[in-house]
């Protein structure tokens, strides 16, 4: 589904992705973790070309992202992206946030799009918020709407960039529950997150990054029980410390 082959990227002189090799199969759930500034967001953003890569190759859903002929808008329609800051459209109601892309890009008839949107809102537990505006919702509710908005395009891949980091602690659970439900339904997912409970529950693999390099790639149990790299040990220790 996703294949990074010797991918590099620079921001000016900063080598933000350094020789990335990573494959994600259909239906797999991969969690990416690592210290702040290690390049996790940049990595996940290359998958739908919010950040273009400078070197190497990247194939997503059979499309070569470095090929000039690849229709990048078509690729993006197949890949859902959930942001740390939700980024809902503030001028549209919850329902219209969800139906905008299906009606305009997929040309789904309005009525069908609304039915699908309602089914998705049901699924994320917000059917009663269809006519609310984003500013009237809590962070956790906004993020669940953002997930529903991404799912409305019937994506083949879902990408999550720290979806719970901007939330108050009491709202993290409701978003993780939606993500776990999605993972169990067989969705291909790449999630940047430090929620180790989530990783343990549903991830097939955990990828640990530092300074633009993938230092470790392992099954969750393996990674938590027996991290190989010193940086990974340190990172886990900090994450589990009560100060965090």
């Amino acid at each position, binding site marked *: 589904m996703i294949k990074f082959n010797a991918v590099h990227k620079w921001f000016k002189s900063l080598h933000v992705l350094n020789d990335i090799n990573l494959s994600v199969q259909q239906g797999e759930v991969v969690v990416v973790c690592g210290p702040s500034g290690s390049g996790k967001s940049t990595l996940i953003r290359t998958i*739908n070309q*919010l950040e273009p890569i400078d070197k190497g190759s990247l194939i997503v859903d059979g499309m070569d992202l470095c090929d000039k002929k690849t229709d990048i808008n078509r690729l*993006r329609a197949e890949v859902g992206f959930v942001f740390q*800051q939700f*980024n809902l*459209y503030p001028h549209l109601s919850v329902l219209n946030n969800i139906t905008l892309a299906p009606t305009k890009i997929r040309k789904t008839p309005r009525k069908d799009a609304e039915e699908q949107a309602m089914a998705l809102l049901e699924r994320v537990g917000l059917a009663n918020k269809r006519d609310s505006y984003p500013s009237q919702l809590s962070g956790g509710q906004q993020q669940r709407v953002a997930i529903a908005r*991404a799912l409305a*395009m019937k994506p083949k891949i879902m990408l999550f960039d720290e979806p719970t980091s901007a939330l108050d602690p009491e709202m993290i659970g409701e978003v993780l529950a939606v993500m776990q439900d999605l993972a169990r339904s067989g969705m291909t997912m790449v999630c940047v997150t430090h929620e180790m409970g989530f990783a343990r529950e549903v991830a097939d693999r955990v990828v640990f990054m530092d300074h633009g390099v993938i230092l470790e790639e392992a099954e969750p149990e393996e990674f938590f029980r027996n991290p190989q790299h010193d940086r990974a040990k340190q990172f886990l220790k900090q994450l589990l410390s009560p100060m965090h």
Partner: protein
Amino acid sequence: MLSYQFDWSVVTTGKYFEWLVSGLGLTLQLSAAGIVLSFLLGLLIAVLRMSHFSPLRWFAHVYLEFFRNTPLLVQIFFWYFGSYKLLPMAVNEWLNSTNFEFAAALIALTIYTSAFIAEDIRSGVLSIPKEQMEAARSAGFSYIRSMQYIILPQAVRITVPPLINQFLNLAKNSSLAMTIGVMELTYQARQVESYTFKGFEAFTAATLVYLVLSVVITALMDQYNNRVLNPQRG
């Protein structure tokens, strides 16, 4: 001055009243058409100005500098007296058979005002967080569609107060159309003055009408802003 006899009936009844009313009709037409057209044109120029294609950006830039930095009166004269020389014969004949003064004034007002509107919309767009564009692009919208469905609707909301200003300016500037013989409100007030020598009454009446027009435009825009653009607050 002391011997001046006020006579308000001159402007509130009879023939001269009808002149003023017909002048107001033309002012309203000119303003309404100008507001709609200058908004659409301003939107287009703003999008061109932000295009990733440099010739379009450059064209919009020259357009903005040119029309914002030359006097409106000169632009009105240009379209009225100058554009003849550039247009094909057939077009000129057709224009002569229509109300050419009105068309020239409308073109000048529209283009002049669109330059200011474009800059207001552009600042509105620049104030929308870049994450909105990212969210739109990541859903699969092209740059233009992202602008159309996500960025511009938000930018226009922010731009409403400066837009009200531009629309008011346009309505007031429409009085310059009298210089090329458009029989709008100011032209008719001038006519009433020359026939009756009641200049004070005629121009007081015109002033009041412009004032009411401004208040109505502001109220309509506020209404639109509250009801249509920001329903979550209304």
